[in-house]
């Protein structure tokens, strides 16, 4: 009996989070579906800051609801459907794995607008996709890493061999090498977005292999904690500021800022001007930000990094500008040529100079 009560309670909690279904019609209702807990200090945390910015911007004219820790797959479709049924006017689904679920629900609710983060499928006129050009941030971080390393070895903890991650590795490496031609980059694939113990072990292995700057494309701050133990190793904040680890351990950070986009899109729904679109914004539009560069970084390196940031923002510098060869020595970009978005979106090769084999 007690157990049954407990189960009933467990079933009620998510429903409470999703909010009351009966809502006044004059308010615009925005729903957010999160992959992690809002307190993950990284990816989901930043999306939730965007949601709060929407509330702050529109006050009483908007109502937001969210559901956290939604697994990718069948559950996602159920959650999105529930949100659409509860009267949401626009729904943001914030993980790559919600792609098919988002499109499936969009087919059944043509009046509701759907916004899917980091995906590419827009099967219905009421679906938009949006993503950030994180690689622009990684180029700047890579430049700092290349300037700072004393051992000429940068460690990189990578999640999965998908274009998004490979782009980040290539961008970091190219700009680290521009700052320091002798730099080498060691990549460890951990095959998880989030496993603090494994990320910590990977950071330790990189440090033991001689890396004194560790970059990461995983979600936890375990590498920072390991760097703290090692004492003489630098890291960067990932997706969120990670300022708790500054200033000695965390030189700077890449921050995703979704707030302006979310405000824009909710306003478009209110005005009736919403249209399906594919957004891929970077430093220029403020979707990717560089966290404070600490004093641990020498002034001239900091100046160089900020100059690079300006150049990328103004469009003067493209992160991938030729001459750049692929790892096998074949020409990718000729002198002065810049990479097109299609190649970047499908990037599946290392650039020349990176050691190690890219897993297939």
């Amino acid at each position, binding site marked *: 009996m007690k157990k049954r009560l407990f189960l009933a309670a467990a079933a009620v909690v998510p429903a409470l989070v999703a909010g009351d279904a009966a809502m006044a019609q004059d308010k615009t209702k925005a729903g957010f579906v999160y992959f992690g807990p809002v307190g993950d200090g990284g990816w989901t945390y930043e999306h939730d800051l965007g949601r709060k910015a929407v509330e702050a911007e529109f006050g009483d004219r908007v109502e937001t609801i969210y559901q956290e820790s939604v697994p990718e797959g069948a559950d996602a479709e159920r959650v999105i459907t529930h949100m659409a049924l509860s009267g949401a006017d626009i729904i943001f689904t914030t993980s790559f794995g919600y792609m098919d679920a988002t499109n499936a629900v969009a087919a059944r609710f043509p009046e509701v607008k759907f916004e899917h983060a980091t995906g590419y499928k827009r099967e219905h006129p009421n679906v938009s996709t949006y993503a950030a050009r994180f690689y622009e941030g990684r180029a700047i971080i890579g430049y700092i890493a290349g300037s700072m390393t004393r051992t000429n070895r940068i460690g990189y903890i990578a999640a999965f061999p998908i274009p998004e991650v490979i782009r980040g590795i290539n961008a970091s490496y190219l700009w680290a090498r521009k700052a320091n031609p002798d730099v080498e980059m*060691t990549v460890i694939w951990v*095959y998880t977005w989030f496993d*603090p113990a494994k990320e910590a*072990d990977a950071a330790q292995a990189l440090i033991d*292999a001689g890396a004194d700057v560790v970059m990461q494309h995983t979600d936890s701050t375990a590498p920072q904690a390991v760097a703290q133990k090692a004492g003489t190793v630098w890291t960067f904040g990932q997706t969120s500021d990670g300022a708790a680890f500054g200033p000695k351990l965390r030189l700077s950070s890449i921050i995703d800022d979704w707030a302006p986009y979310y405000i824009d899109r909710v306003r478009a729904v209110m005005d009736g001007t919403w249209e399906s679109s594919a957004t891929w914004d970077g430093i220029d539009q403020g979707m990717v930000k560089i966290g404070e560069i600490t004093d641990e970084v020498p002034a001239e390196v900091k100046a160089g990094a900020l100059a690079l940031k300006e150049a990328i923002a103004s469009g003067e510098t493209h992160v991938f500008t030729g001459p750049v060869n692929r790892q096998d020595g074949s020409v990718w970009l000729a002198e002065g040529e810049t990479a097109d978005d299609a190649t970047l979106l499908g990037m599946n090769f290392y650039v020349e100079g990176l050691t190690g*084999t890219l*897993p297939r």
Partner: protein
Amino acid sequence: MTDFPILALLAGMIVAATPILLAGIGELVVEKAGVLNLGVEGMMIVGAICGFAVAYETQSVTLGYLGAAMGGAALALVFGVLTQFLMTNQVATGLALTLTGLGVAALIGQPYIGIRGTTVGAVPLGPMREIPVLGPVLFRHDAMVYISILIVACVWYVLRFTRAGLVLRAIGENHHAAHALGCKVIVTRLAAIVFGGVCAGLGGAYLSLVRVPQWAEGMTAGAGWIALALVVFAGWRAWGVLVGACLFGGLTALQLFLQAAGVAVLGEYLSMIPYVMTIVALVIISSGRVRAAPCAPASLGLPFTAAT
């Protein structure tokens, strides 16, 4: 490609082995008493957050471990009361314990996300640190590594050479016979379950205090299941758990070190092996043949009601 850091790899192996060693040796005692507690993962994660929270609030790692042990024990006690007094199914209760533990830990952990953990120093072993090869591998760790090995030794000694160990094993082999001889089946099992909780809690705390060291939701990421498999893999022998933990931990460390050294080809396969071994072990445990295996407690997982 640099020189392969074999000493660092071995040291990393020990760090990776310690959490599953602690959880595994606790579960070994529980199973030796004839109880199957599948809630190791839940007890570990509760230990991880209790350890981190207490250590952070008191700035004392020792108190942190104490808090972790109590957190693990409290959850284990819930399991004990449910299975020993209310006669619930051990498998289902254990699974529920894992889910509950993950949820409870996430709840307690809300204020501790993104906070810097404490730094745990190595035990000052003086000249032993400088012994070539052995020094860097064995004598530069924190206290819990040595305590965990001590716990293994104690468990081995108690189970093998003391009356209490004999009683515990007797209860695990045939609880009716042990009961007829006057052994206190329920009390002994409760004690074993609590001991398992203490050990799992310490193992979890080792993650949040030493190996990572910080709190993150779901940070045990399956270590509890590996610990369960470890007990089967070890054939219910205390020293076998130590060997298995080093093997499992070594494989985790090895694949990362190979990648760091530029050998990426084997990475995926090596990272698979602990899980493949786990699956094989779990197949064995569920096939029913386990009772014929040497050292497997004959009454494992069976409910006990005192015959009148």
